């Protein structure tokens, strides 16, 4: 070692990340115990949620976040909110990636002032009903998955504390949507929505029911983003986490819609080797995947990648070699969840990579086509996936507007009527996805092509598809069902729909009793 005078080093004051002269006193204290002993005493693992909440310094008025990978089986949101309420913290903003039926206990926390404001992709069940009837002073902000990701990335939606449930986690916070160390317990596959929250939240707490040995690799969330880990008995109900998304429909209407949609895809010009696609989890969407598989085998066409919410159908095609790669932000069923664990090219991606409009490239922009569902479509091709025919909130925006905007061909599949309610109408209750981004509407009683896409229309004519116009579909629906009386609303705004660029595209009003 040579003697040196720190201040005589040329340009030393211009060197960044240089913290003066080395001093032995600052040396990291070596810990001589074995790795296994050490991880038993990880300082990140806390005995209770209450302790974790105290340590992260949660205060009145802060913003907390949750993911919705456990869907209707989720215990985490209610568990955490109960503890927060007991601790007397008030006025929180709850910014979940989405909320569903099982989150109705939030109603009491809203009434008691624990939750002041909610941001989510969707609301359902009693909570959706209560919000539609004027539960909250502050309107609920609905964002698409891409819009939420963008808001988090830009810092506009600042998360103080993320509470993220994970089916497995090690003592340092490497968390995953499945458990590689045993087959028991819950499994949700991709942690796509949680990944972004972990990355951007000031503090991140992982809540798990399976504490496994370090390193829990490959991980969905790395320990470098995790402050604390809390082990609880149960993070969710496995049956609710995987509630019947994958089902082989026998409904003849859905099968007919799927046949039409598949023929439309095959005729569209996008069905060629190395195409890309996203399918939903609805009955008709799943049937499309099944029919499309037949065409792929017959014509020896392979799919380069499938994106999105992933189902067992897509996994089956991947394992057969028909779909080369899978980009998975959310696994819809157990087969998909296990595939994330077992298949090298079934990749979990975060919400920003999936659909954000502000990052340097989102996967939705590489889609040839997407199959989407709808509660309502109007004659301008606008789509509602949020409010029911009674005007009550009962849906989720999800990635609907993101994929519709990104895909080269956006196909909306829906029955012409649901029960007596027309699906195709003059004006949707709530616009979630603007008609300018919707290209084809496939119903059991014909296909309508957006006039902005005449070349698709020509191809469908050549293929002999049952074409009609969107106006004719609306007229037919009303002739069969009768014209419904308009929904009665009050003037009060209870929900605000953000488009994926986080501009207000529509509002939801309180329903009149």
């Amino acid at each position: 070692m040579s003697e040196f005078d720190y201040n005589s080093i040329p340009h030393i004051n211009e060197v960044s990340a240089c913290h003066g002269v080395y001093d032995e006193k600052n040396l990291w204290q070596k810990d001589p115990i074995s790795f296994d002993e050490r991880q038993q005493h990880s300082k990140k693992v806390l005995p209770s949620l209450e302790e974790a909440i105290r340590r992260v310094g949660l205060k009145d008025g802060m913003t907390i976040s949750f993911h919705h990978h456990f869907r209707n089986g989720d215990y985490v949101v209610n568990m955490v909110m109960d503890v927060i309420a007991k601790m007397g913290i008030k006025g929180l903003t709850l910014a979940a990636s989405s909320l569903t039926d099982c989150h109705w206990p939030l109603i009491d926390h809203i009434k008691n002032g624990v939750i002041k404001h909610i941001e989510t992709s969707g609301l359902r069940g009693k909570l959706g009903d209560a919000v539609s009837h004027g539960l909250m002073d502050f309107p609920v902000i609905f964002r698409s998955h891409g819009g939420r990701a963008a808001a988090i990335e830009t810092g506009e939606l600042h998360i103080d504390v993320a509470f993220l449930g994970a089916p497995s986690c090690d003592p340092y916070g490497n968390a995953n949507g499945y458990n590689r160390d045993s087959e028991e317990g819950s499994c949700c596959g991709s942690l796509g929505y949680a990944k972004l929250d972990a990355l951007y939240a000031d503090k991140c707490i992982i809540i798990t029911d399976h504490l496994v040995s370090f390193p829990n690799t490959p991980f969905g969330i790395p320990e470098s983003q995790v402050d604390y880990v809390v082990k609880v008995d149960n993070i969710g109900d496995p049956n609710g986490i995987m509630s019947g998304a994958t089902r082989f429909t026998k409904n003849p209407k859905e099968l007919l819609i799927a046949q039409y949609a598949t023929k439309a895809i095959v005729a569209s010009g996008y069905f060629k080797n190395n195409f890309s696609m996203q399918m939903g989890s609805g009955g008709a969407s799943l049937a499309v995947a099944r029919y499309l598989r037949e065409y792929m085998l017959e014509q020896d066409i392979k799919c380069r990648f499938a994106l999105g919410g992933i189902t067992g159908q897509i996994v089956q095609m991947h394992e057969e070699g028909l779909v080369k790669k899978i980009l998975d932000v959310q696994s819809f069923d157990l087969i998909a969840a296990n595939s994330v664990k077992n298949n090298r090219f079934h990749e979990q991606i975060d919400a920003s990579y999936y659909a954000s409009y502000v990052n340097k490239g989102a996967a939705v922009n590489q889609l040839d086509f997407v199959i989407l569902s709808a509660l309502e479509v109007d004659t301008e091709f606008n789509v509602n996936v949020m409010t029911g025919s009674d005007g009550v909130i009962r849906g989720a925006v999800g990635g609907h507007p993101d994929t519709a905007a990104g895909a080269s061909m956006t196909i909306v599949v829906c029955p012409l009527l649901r029960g007596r309610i027309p699906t195709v109408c003059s004006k949707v209750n709530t616009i979630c996805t603007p008609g300018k981004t919707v290209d084809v509407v496939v119903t059991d009683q014909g296909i309508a092509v957006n006039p902005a896409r005449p070349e698709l229309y020509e191809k469908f004519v050549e293929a002999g598809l049952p074409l009609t116009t969107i106006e004719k579909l609306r007229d037919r629906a009303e002739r069969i069902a009768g014209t419904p009386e308009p929904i009665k609303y009050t003037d009060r705004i209870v929900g605000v729909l953000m488009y994926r660029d986080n501009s207000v595209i529509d509002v939801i009003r309180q329903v009149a009793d």
Partner: protein
Amino acid sequence: MEIKRPGVAGTMESSDIIVRIEPKETEGIELTLESAVMQQYGKQIEKVIRETLEELGVTKAYVNAVDKGALDCTVAARTLAAAYRSAESTEYVWSEVKVK
């Protein structure tokens, strides 16, 4: 047509309606309706039930209907069947069914 005893037609299945008709001593049709689509089609369903009974000449009855999104033709058909059963009549005159 005279309503003699309780008569029921229909099911609780989606897109169906169950119509129950019972005798009433005084003049008038007393109708209670529950519907999955009350807000949008409640008035229309009531209209179809009342018109169907009127065509049959039923003027005294309690009617209870639980609708699961039935179309007008189904509402009329179930009302008609319930009325015939209540009247203990098997002399069906199918032409009474107006094409809606």
